């Protein structure tokens, strides 16, 4: 069985899956940046004491699953989401959906994802892809990271759907159901809601580990890494920061650019020149994230490594924090027409 389906490549997996699944149920006006913005995808958090691959735990995006959930909720699209304890039932449910012609989103772990290159296969369990059909023993897979659609055998798919460890997917499947007609007005309201929620997350979460305050805290911590961890481990930590930040077109720099693109597209729905201006601020933040990555690379390549270089790196993050704070404050002052 092979259903009518068009593969779509995206900068970020959950954006891509959400955009494509929604197009499948007739909401065709959406783009990746709109989905990212409506789902309030931009975030920063550094979770102290938690270690990932023996390095710091940093995220540049919201919790996995939320972009899909929020975008559908804001547009009034009903959602089906299921987790399974039995591998057998998970497979039956999936086959059943495909038989009905329903393409579905799947949360999977990448460690045993066979088509990924070895270098990328860490125990990261919040990757998203679409299964859109089955040919013999093979499931047809649309992975938004990839240029083309691909496939997985039954065993391979079961393995990644039931990957274990933090954020274990537990066979999770989700898809939107046919909504009532989604109008321009619905999208306009969803954009407004998404921006407001993102302002809250970046500016108003108490404590100093999340949002723009989290970025500054991170900057101050980096300045201490050289003495606290020694040059070798500090280098490893910085490499991890860059990986979390820039991997697969996403992370710090990439996400700021997507948000910039989102604000430009939001302008089509809310013609307020300020949105275009603020979009430029996000571009600047994204550029600075990339400069910070270059600085970090100098350190983990061993080209530089004096305390002064760590200070500079830390100051860059503190500057980014200030820029993003300004950007979100400016967004807060926008008068939205409804």
């Amino acid at each position, binding site marked *: 069985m092979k259903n009518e389906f068009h593969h779509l*490549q*995206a*900068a970020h997996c959950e954006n891509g899956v959400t955009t494509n699944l929604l197009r499948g149920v007739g909401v065709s006006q959406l783009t990746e*940046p709109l989905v990212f913005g409506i789902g309030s995808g931009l975030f920063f958090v550094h979770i102290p004491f938690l270690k990932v*691959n023996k390095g710091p735990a940093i995220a540049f995006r919201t919790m996995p699953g939320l972009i899909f959930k929020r975008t559908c909720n804001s547009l009034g699209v009903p959602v089906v989401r299921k987790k399974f304890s039995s591998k057998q039932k998970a497979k039956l449910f999936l086959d059943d959906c495909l038989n009905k012609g329903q393409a579905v989103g799947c949360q999977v772990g990448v*460690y*045993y994802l066979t*088509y*990924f*290159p070895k*270098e*990328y296969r*860490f*125990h990261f369990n919040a990757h998203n892809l679409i299964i859109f059909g089955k040919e013999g023993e093979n499931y047809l897979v649309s992975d938004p*990271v*990839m*240029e*083309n659609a691909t496939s997985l055998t039954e065993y391979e798919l079961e393995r990644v759907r039931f990957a*274990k*460890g*933090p954020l*274990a997917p537990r066979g999770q499947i989700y898809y939107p159901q046919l909504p009532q007609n989604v109008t321009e007005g619905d999208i306009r309201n969803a954009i407004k809601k998404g921006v407001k929620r993102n302002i809250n997350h970046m500016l108003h979460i108490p404590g100093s580990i999340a949002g723009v305050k989290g970025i500054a805290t991170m900057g101050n911590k980096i300045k201490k890494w050289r003495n606290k961890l020694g040059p070798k481990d500090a*280098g*490893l930590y910085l*490499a*991890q920061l*860059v*990986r979390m930040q*820039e*991997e*697969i*077109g996403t992370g710090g*720099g*990439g996400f700021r*650019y*997507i948000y*910039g*693109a989102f604000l*430009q597209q939001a302008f089509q729905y809310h013609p307020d020149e300020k949105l275009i201006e603020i*979009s*430029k601020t996000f*571009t600047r933040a*994204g*550029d600075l994230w*990339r400069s910070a*990555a*270059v600085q*970090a*690379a100098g350190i*983990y*390549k061993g080209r530089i490594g004096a305390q002064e270089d760590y200070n500079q790196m830390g100051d860059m993050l503190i500057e980014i924090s200030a820029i993003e704070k300004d950007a979100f404050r400016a967004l807060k002052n926008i008068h939205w027409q409804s």
Partner: protein
Amino acid sequence: MKKEEIPQDNGALNKLTKEVVYATDQSGNYSTGLSTGWDIKSTALDVAWNDIEKRIADAKAKVLSNEASPLLYFMELRLMDLQIISGYTGFWKWTIKKHLKPAAFNKLSIARLKKYAEAFNVTIEELKTMELHEK
């Protein structure tokens, strides 16, 4: 980032696919472009893998000198911590810790060895000898 600044270095993902990135054109409008990879990023990945290779070698040495059971080697090789192994095998973390000692590991039943072998995607023979025949 401007369109013409999209990095086109050789990244690990390049064997498989190009990545979509968002960048601005001359009039400042965003659209997507493709990148083959970014040197800064691939070095970060190299740094992580060099460290992993070193940990794997250390673990192997420890197993060979009988300070640890082959489990330690496979933990490092498969990048698994106790939580992840526990997830795949269903064993408690402290049970796994116990099995990290050679004496306890040597007494494991076939059924339990099989669970570890499955989690690491190897055969029981490979699990015991650390000699992998991977494609």
